[in-house]
């Protein structure tokens, strides 16, 4: 059912493409041009994860937007890990997928910024990927450090697309993803070409590192958090996380409604 004047739609969308990416990941593209145009980087859709035969978990699963915009199909890129993502990966072109969205508060980019730095680990890059296009449209240069197990897991093309983002990969396989090595890399970047803002998603360790360094260099930042969700709209209060309040205490905020993107310094490790 789609009730046009409302900002959030509940809709069956037709799958245009369903394909594995590397060894562990999968991508879906949907025919939903108006929803794709409405989606913003960092927002998510709540997906009813049922395979072609109607089997899948009872609750919907939140899935951050990987591709959106007026010119391209709505896309999701995910790690095939549990029942929900397995059901999604079993969908084929022509199947229908029930989506609710777009939902949540996305990333914000300030038009005056000249350069941002993105630090992502694993499939966390899917959430940050649409920032590269959004930044390119504003003439903001993107400097990205992507951490992965090994080159086969990297997905640099899935991240940057045609945005022109500068990607520096670091790997577990050669030790370049060690926290000390990433810290040295970030310090060099901050000193050579200080970014106007930093962004991260996907790794608690990298989040804590980026939070510490960006505080030291007084660079603002944003982080996209994940959390198990019930309704996805803010009604059930199941997806709360403690977030630092201005008074120094913490307050439980809903990842679905007040997030999933939070101020980097206000978020707490998980």
């Amino acid at each position, binding site marked *: 059912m789609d009730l046009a004047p409302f900002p959030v739609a509940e809709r069956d969308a037709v799958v245009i493409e369903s394909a594995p990416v590397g060894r562990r990941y999968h991508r879906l593209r949907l025919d939903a041009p108006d929803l794709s145009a409405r989606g913003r980087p960092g927002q998510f859709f709540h997906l009813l994860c049922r395979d072609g035969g109607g089997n899948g978990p*009872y*609750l919907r699963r939140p899935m951050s937007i990987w591709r959106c915009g007026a010119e391209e199909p709505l896309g999701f890129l995910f790690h095939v890990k549990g029942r929900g993502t397995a059901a999604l990966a079993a969908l084929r072109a022509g199947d229908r997928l029930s989506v609710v969205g777009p939902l949540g508060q996305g990333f914000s980019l300030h038009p005056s910024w000249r350069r941002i730095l993105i630090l992502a680990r694993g499939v966390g890059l899917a959430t940050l990927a649409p920032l590269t296009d959004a930044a390119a449209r504003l003439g903001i240069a993107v400097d990205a450090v992507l951490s992965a197990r090994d080159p086969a897991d990297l997905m640099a093309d899935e991240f940057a697309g045609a945005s022109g983002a500068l990607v520096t990969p670091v790997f577990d396989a050669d030790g370049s993803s060690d926290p000390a090595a990433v810290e040295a890399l970030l310090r060099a970047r901050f000193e050579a070409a200080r970014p106007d803002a930093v962004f991260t998603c996907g790794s608690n360790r990298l989040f804590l590192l980026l939070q510490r360094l960006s505080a030291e260099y007084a660079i603002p930042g944003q982080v996209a958090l994940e959390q198990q969700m019930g*309704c996805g*709209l803010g*009604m*059930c*209060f*199941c997806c709360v996380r403690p977030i630092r309040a201005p008074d120094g205490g913490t307050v439980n905020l809903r990842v679905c*409604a007040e997030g999933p993107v939070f101020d980097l310094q206000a978020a707490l490790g998980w």
Partner: protein
Amino acid sequence: MVDLTTRIGAVTLANPVMPASGTFGPELAQVFDLGLLGALVTKSVTPEPRSGNPLPRLCETEAGILNSIGIPGKGLDHFIAHAIPEWRRFRPPLVVSLSAGTNAAFAEAAARLADTPGIAAIEANISCPNLEEDGRAFAMFPESAAAAIAAMRARCALPIWAKLSPNTGDIAAVARAAEEAGADAIVVANTILGLAIDIEKATPKLGAGMGGFSGPAFKPIALRLTWQCAQAVRIPVIGVGGIATAEDAVEFMMAGATAVQVGTASFISPTALVQVIDGLRDFCTRRGFARSADLTGLALPGSGRLAAE
């Protein structure tokens, strides 16, 4: 044209479909026009602020969910100052769900709500723990249910809907006790206590241990409770538990419900409430019922089944 008008005592609803407390909020106005609903039902408000239960607060099963959210909220003062004005932007009658730990706290809060303009009824969430009875829910026993309702009745002229718990051995007796204590309607029923265990960690899946079970798998139980209560009391019964479709709603009405609440289904389909209203109208049209109210009690023993045909 089917007449969906529904009367719950002194409260008139445009249709018999409303949300279940705890599964609804103004956030749903992003998805559809809340003016379509028979009534608005808030999350339970408590006299004092509460931070809620430890995570995880929710886990799914094959056909439903367990929750132990813990009624987080900013308390009654904040609710009256901020939430009520926000709710009054919407047309349907506003039903405020109220939870408290003692009879006196229920009564005091009900009196405050009675002095607040814009509230059509109080839904008394007496399924919450009674702090004066070792945390056993008020609605587990006829005596404690009646005492909580009577305490509110004495201080509050608003209609009081008593939300009963399935976690009791004799719900008909609890329903009668609530009616005799002055309830204007009963809501049947809250979630049923359940448990899920993470076998890798050997701990309950919910942070709080036990939780309330809801969703489609609970429907036959809630329907049976509705049927029993409808035969036990003269006040209206509002059926709730596992309703996801108009067909489910018709079942509850035929089992004696005057109105229904849709809860967990809104998590799966945020437009479920609208689909239930539309489907109810379609059912009445197809079967020749001029008024949806004529469905109430049709399947009860001795009702003269389908006399309308």
